[in-house]
């Protein structure tokens, strides 16, 4: 069955079509949920809420843009909804913001480790880092989505990068000490 046909059937609340759509996209959206959530359980909650929203609102999807893009936006919004009112207002001097680089071999770190340290970030840092660095939103867009100023978005991103860098470097240190 074509994707269009599946969407049409989903609009009729057809359980089998919904199941097919879920099977097609669950893995991709779950990885996104994992990145935006602080742990596995919360990611599953977000995924569940995301799909419920998707199937309830599927009539609003008019075929402009890819279905996957539309679904991803819903997933991101679902994740943001959870933290919209959480307030962390660290102000960082914007002069401090520079490219944070880390001296590391690609193969040294696993995906699981990277995911773990993303999830360990404070809520707002994690969201800003995901939105800006991984999903390509601008600071202006992030500011609107999170109801913060774009200055806050920038400083949150800088903090997030520094924390991630520290953790990777610590990890490297423990690795090299193991080899000694």
């Amino acid at each position, binding site marked *: 069955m074509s994707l269009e046909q599946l969407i049409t059937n989903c609009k009729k*609340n057809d359980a089998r079509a919904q199941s097919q759509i879920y099977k097609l996209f669950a893995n991709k959206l779950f*990885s996104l949920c994992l990145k935006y959530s602080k742990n596995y359980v919360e990611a599953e909650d977000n995924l*569940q809420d995301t799909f419920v929203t998707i199937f*309830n609102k599927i009539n609003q999807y008019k075929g402009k843009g890819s279905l996957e893009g539309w679904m991803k936006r819903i997933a991101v919004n679902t994740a943001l909804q959870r933290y919209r009112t959480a307030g962390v207002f660290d102000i960082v001097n914007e002069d401090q913001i520079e490219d*944070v*680089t*880390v001296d590391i071999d690609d193969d040294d*770190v696993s995906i699981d480790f*990277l995911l773990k340290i993303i999830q360990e970030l404070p809520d707002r840092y994690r969201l800003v880092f995901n939105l800006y660095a991984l999903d390509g939103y601008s600071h202006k867009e992030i500011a609107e989505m999170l109801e913060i100023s774009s200055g806050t978005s920038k400083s949150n991103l800088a903090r997030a990068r520094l924390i991630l860098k520290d953790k*990777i470097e610590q990890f490297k240190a423990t690795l090299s000490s193991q080899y000694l």
Partner: protein
Amino acid sequence: MSDKKNIDRLFQEKLKDFEATPSDAVWENIHNTLHNKKNKKRRVIPIWWQLGGVAATLLLILTISGVFNSNTDSKSDSIKTVVDNTENTNNTVVSNGSEKNNDNNNDIAPVYNPEEFGVENKSNDPTSNLNKASDETKSSYASTINTKNTPIYSKENKNTSITKTTVKEAIASAKEDSNKLNDQTQQSNSNIIKNKLNELLKTDTKGSKVVSTGSENNDNIQKTDSVNAITSIALNEDKNLKENALENAIAKANDEQQNEKEEELKNRWSVSPNVAPVYFNTLGNGSSIHNQFNDNIKSGDVNMSYGITGSYAINDKLKVRAGLNKVDLGYSTNDVIFYNNPETVLGLSLNTPQSDNTRIQNINYRSESANVSFISASSLSLNNTPEIIKENSLASLDQQFGFIEIPVELEYTVLDKRLGINLIGGFSTMFLSNNEIYVLSNSGDRTLIGEANNINDMSYSANFGIGLNYGLSDKFNINLEPMFKYQINTFNNTTGNFQPYFIGVYTGLSFKF
């Protein structure tokens, strides 16, 4: 090969093709959420609407008939008929229209009792009608179930005997389950069971062709589908497999139905004790006591009303609610002259004969106050009035009455935030519980002189209002509801343009469960 890497790029590259598989429970939850909710929306609400409609119609009929009666029957007629009906005819004193001075409380009491009987019978009407209505719907459900079952039985005779027993079992248990349900959800749930059965059976046949008989009735098509599905199972699989499939289907249907019930009941009900200051007055010039007071200034009293209201949310916009309130009302007719002994004022030049003006037909006097007479100060020429009367006898007539009020109202949600706004409309049925008339002299003495005989024991009001509520938590709300209640047939022999109403600002704390 270690090199300096931008940290963003590191994450981007590593996580680019990252995918993860969620546990199966996630999909089950999604599926349950979607399909339970949809079923609820589609099937349960219309039944509530129907019941709500029946209730509203009954209320309307009661109200109209009430207004009609009060317009055509005079007070004495209605008392007479009630007395006749209840066979309590040992007392006929008041039935003549109570013009005599020697009416006293003992005479009145037995008359009011039979009238209350009449009231009670009347008030039982709507409930018995409601029962009837729900019985009717019940039996119609039953008949639809039966007619739906018939094609299955007739079909299965043509099939193998093996299918016969299993189908019978399935239907028997499905029936049993649907019997357990309450009246409102009976039809919807048995539909769900049947749909689930069809759905699951169809899946189990794995695409084996389902033949439709081409019957015009949709239900029949559905049913024959399921029968054909069962037949093809019988052909494809052995008896055990088939029994398992059916048992699973039924078990699953039971589970879903259980879930749905729980979901439905969640926080639909709320109960709210409330208290309100109420202000009574009349819209036009007129008097409930006597026509000579039509143009006197009336001042409304502020009294209290308190009670409890229960409400049921039909959906997220609409609530039905009913309650029980005690409400006290009252107003004063100012500038009234009263005097105790008729002889002392015979010398006064009264504009109209004494018998018309000074004895008031709408009051049943206490024996102690039998000699008290009233006239409106405006009917006296002040020049002729002796000083002693002006000083000592100027008073106001203070009429107090109380009701047990049963409001039935609809509440429509306009704004559903932490601070919510609702529009409220409905009716109240009011049962008279207190009825007194006092004289309040300018010197401050307050004397009970009797009670009004033209207040109906049962009357109605049309209610409008705005509700504000503020959420303290998920369970508790503070409510503030300014309400306007227009009384429809509270008084019988009013003069002038007497249109009583009262305004109350109801405050309460509601608890959802």
